């Protein structure tokens, strides 16, 4: 805490400062150097992030979009794996916080030409960045990068490990729509094995007092997922009436069809959201998807577009919108805590 405080006092004061100091009281401990995983965050820390995101969202509603939290700070977005949605969300968040920002998308080929990840990060480190946002196809890569840089590293999704800002924006959206996470039941449907979104959401919802059930073909439920706090179910219809929010994960068609289930059609029959299943949901339940969606595979188009009335609603676009506020909160907290 003292190191934290010293840093703050030497920084030029800004409008978010008072708010930040107030929030800081809520921390049970110092933030980790990097934002790599929900697993190592406390409930208080998660709530602090969500509260700050709420503050940003409210200010935006009042027309106050631009902030100076990261003025004079260098932010590098490094997207080793392409992702339009997450990248633009982080870019917008960085701009709104007045960071000096650049985005690079290293080609896998340049790394294979003998330049290692380590070489590359050490080169970027020479420019003295304050924040690095990293998306990478390999589990653990942001942590490896963090070990080569003094910058705070924010994980924007690594392999099948974690995607912390996605879980935070999901939690934010559920809290916004349902009032709280405590006691709420999140059902995650689909490819749990390869999903970083599922892992981060399991941690986030369990820490916030909710409960999580993972549903999918047995081939896509990884062993020991229960140890992370989730329940497991293979029958979607059995669990749907008990869900407060149902999150459908994207099916990577290329990866799955060979081994994990016989066909997309069969997958959709057992695990897709359709009208019958929609009717079985609680009226106030939320239908979520981290995107990008395969229309007609994970969710029927009419439901995805929210054209059915008088029942559970999709909040997919709310998720996207809240993504900016949540990422602003993360960048602000980690950019300043540095």
């Amino acid at each position, binding site marked *: 805490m003292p190191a934290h405080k010293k840093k703050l006092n030497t920084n030029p004061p800004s409008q978010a400062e008072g708010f930040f100091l107030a929030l800081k009281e809520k921390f049970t401990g110092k933030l980790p150097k990097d934002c790599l995983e929900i697993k190592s965050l406390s409930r208080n820390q998660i709530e602090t992030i969500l509260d700050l995101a709420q503050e940003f969202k409210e200010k935006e509603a009042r027309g106050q979009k631009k902030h100076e939290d990261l003025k004079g700070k260098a932010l590098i977005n490094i997207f080793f794996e392409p992702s339009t949605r997450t990248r633009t969300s982080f870019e917008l968040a960085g701009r709104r916080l007045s960071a000096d920002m650049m985005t690079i998308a290293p080609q896998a080929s340049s790394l294979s030409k003998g330049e290692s990840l380590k070489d590359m990060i050490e080169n970027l480190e020479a420019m003295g960045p304050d924040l690095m946002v990293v998306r990478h196809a390999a589990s*653990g890569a942001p942590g490896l990068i963090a070990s080569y840089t003094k910058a705070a590293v924010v994980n924007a999704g690594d392999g*099948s490990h974690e995607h912390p800002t996605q879980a935070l924006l999901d939690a934010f959206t559920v809290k916004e729509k349902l009032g709280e996470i405590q006691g709420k039941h999140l059902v995650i449907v689909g490819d749990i094995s390869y999903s970083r979104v599922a892992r981060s959401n399991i941690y986030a919802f369990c820490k916030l007092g909710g409960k999580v059930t993972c549903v999918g073909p047995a081939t896509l439920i990884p*062993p020991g997922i229960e140890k992370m706090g989730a329940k497991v179910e293979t029958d979607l219809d059995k669990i749907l009436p008990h869900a407060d929010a149902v999150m459908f994960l994207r099916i990577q068609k290329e990866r799955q069809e060979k081994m994990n289930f016989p066909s997309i059609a069969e997958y959709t029959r057992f695990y897709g959201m359709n009208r019958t299943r929609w009717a079985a949901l609680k009226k106030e339940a939320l239908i979520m998807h981290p995107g990008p969606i395969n229309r007609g595979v994970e969710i029927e188009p009419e439901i995805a577009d929210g054209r059915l009335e008088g029942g559970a609603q999709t909040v997919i676009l709310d998720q996207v919108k809240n993504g900016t506020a949540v990422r602003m909160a993360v960048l602000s907290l980690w950019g300043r805590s540095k």
Partner: protein
Amino acid sequence: MKMLIKNGHVVDPVAKKDGLFDLLIEDGKIKKWEKRLRVDTVDTIIDAKGLVVTPGLIDLHTHLREPGYEYKETIKTGSMAAAAGGFTTIVCMANTNPVNDNAVITEFITKRAQEEAIVNVLPIGAISKNLEGKAMADIGQMAEAGIVGISDDGRCVMDTALMRKSMQYARGFGLMVVSHAEDECLSGHGSMNEGPVATELGLSGSPNAAEELIVARDIALAELTKAKLHIAHMSSRGSLELVKAAKKRGVSVTCEVTPHHLFLTDEAVRGYNTNASVRPPLRSREDALALRRGIEDGFVDTIATDHAPHASFEKEVEFAQAAHGMVGLETSLALCLKLVQDRSIKLSQLIKLMSANPAHILGLKSKGTLKPGADADIAIFDPNEKWNVDPTKFYSKSRNTPFGGWSLKGKIKYTVVNGKIVYENI
């Protein structure tokens, strides 16, 4: 040349001796030993008071990386690491570049070993040409050139018919067949155990069954072909059960376990620790405990290091990209002495596992014991000296160990090969 080793606590399970003896060595052979030896003239005297004197350790499983990967290890540096760990004979695997799949490479290795190695180096030849698992390597000619067995270690021979034929053929030359048991269709070449830790880390895992399937297959093939089968680096409790049952049926099968599978679990991978990336992967606690029981009840034949040196740039990468394996020659004895310190086994049992048994598996009658007439290959260690594993001090060219910083008890003071001191640390 005469050497006298005085006042040492000699442990020789073959000679069934465990007590204070003086040992006389003459012309590279053990001459005699008695409670107190009076010798008029000797060239060298080692005072082994407070030290344990045992037959030199024998490692059935090392990777020396020469030819082809000299930046990781050479025959010379690997042999120095061996000597520092009390090993006097090491068996080196065929996955060099080029692969040791023909007599020219075998001769290169044996010649190099004669010129530069400070311990005995015995090569293993490949089962298949270029380790591709497609066609048989020049097994007979390599046998003439001095290989002691065949193995595609690093790869599994997935073609069962080729494995069968190779075992039959090797039997004709009296060669053992060393199986790297890993169903590659099932394992996905994974270097992480399938289970809760892999799930949490988002790494794809290789299940125990990937190993057990091939152990079961190769035991069946050993029964079919009557070949001498040796299961390398056994990691799963199911494999141990298969080997136990086969031994009880009288199948000619032996097995080894590594110190890392005995003393580490998949928990060691947390933090994406690439030094814990190895195939077969570090398994669960239940597996490690089962292997230790296998050692206690004598079904495990030997502890082998699977010494696998890699340069730091090959480990400072994403976990899934990291080179597999760890160095082990310089930490093996001190780690395994834990079994004695924990009273799991007696010291003489450990020496049997690390010297007498591997000598027997290799068919080396003059090694693995200090009986008069045997080769004067000797390890002398202080069983009580504590030390911290500092990879920067390794004789090996590589530092990839998951045991860095561990505090261990038991330190090699002298290593004697062929009656000559090749390593001393006093």
